[in-house]
């Protein structure tokens, strides 16, 4: 009887020890205390750096695009003005003061 009870206790203790060991192994305590991978840290730093640089580049491109659009608008206006001046010169009206009786009259429209 005593021997049987002793074996049961031994089995129970063995099971408890087994499951405790399992739990300890499953939590991987060595993982938390281990040093982070320097390659991952470097990658994270590089990622942050690239993000900052992309913001700077985006702002630069937006600024240059805005300047380009203003310059393009000004250039279009210059070309239009030159074109209109050419047209006006080409089709300059011919007018002179005469002493003929008028056919019609211009007045405030």
């Amino acid at each position, binding site marked *: 009887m005593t021997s049987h009870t002793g074996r049961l206790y031994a089995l129970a203790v063995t099971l408890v020890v087994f499951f405790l060991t399992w739990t300890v192994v499953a939590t991987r305590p060595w993982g938390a205390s281990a040093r982070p991978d320097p390659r991952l840290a470097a990658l994270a730093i590089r990622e942050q750096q690239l993000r900052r640089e992309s913001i700077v580049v985006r702002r630069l491109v937006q600024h240059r695009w805005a300047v380009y659009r203003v310059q393009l608008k000004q250039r279009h206006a210059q070309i239009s003005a030159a074109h209109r001046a050419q047209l*006006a010169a080409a089709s300059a009206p*011919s007018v002179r*003061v005469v002493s003929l009786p*008028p*056919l*019609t009259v*211009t007045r405030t*429209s």
Partner: protein
Amino acid sequence: MERRTFRAMGTEIDLLVDASGATAALSAAEDEFHRLEAILSRFRQDSELSLLNRAGRLDPGPDLMRVTELALAAREDTGGRFDPTVHDAVVAAGYDRTFESIAAHGPEPEARACGGEVRIDRGVIELDDGVRLDFGGIGKGYAADRAAEVLAIAGPCLVNAGGDIAVRDGAWPIAVQTATGSLTVELTSGALATSGRDRRRWQRGGRELHHLIDPATGTSAGGDLVRATVVASDAVVAEVWAKALFLAGEEAGAAEADLLRLPSVFVSTGGTTRLAGGLR
């Protein structure tokens, strides 16, 4: 010589063509005025212009698009002295119905700001909130040019749209009112227009107002001129610069006419007449 007179765009239209059997061409030119009036009039609720002014955005036909483009180019060329966004200022001044229906007297109006944004993008005209367009003057000039093109098929011609005159070929003696009477100029090509404050005027708050709005003040223009007449390559340009030089005043207007080589006649409030821009 054949002649036809009729009313359109709130004024009297006079068509002359130096040809015989030009009835069809005269009718086509008259139809062109009525067609453009139906598109460009701010007094017609169903016109394209009224639709645009109500909606603030429109995919317009080619004529409204062209007039809008011309008006915006004119605003730039004249430094804002010509501005199609004067609609609300004209209405506030009392010109809110056809001129014949305007009450002779009324309370003092408030000035309205002009110069709002008008955008043209991929065939669509967009107006900023509160911006409405008035093509009263430039529309007549545009119609005179278009009608002259139609009429020119029959022969040398002259189109007079209430003072905005376009000619094609021939030599046309035209009377220009001066301070003391009139002088006659002979126009063989191009166009001529007169802007002034001696017509289309009324009283508000004991003050005389007229239809020429100064976009800088948002109310009827002051200055030392009664009227300015300008000769140019077409009636739109003549109309635009007649208004711009009128707003500039006699001295600045004459100097600008000389610089731009725009033959001009200025009549001042002091009773003098001045020729400029090479006109002699």
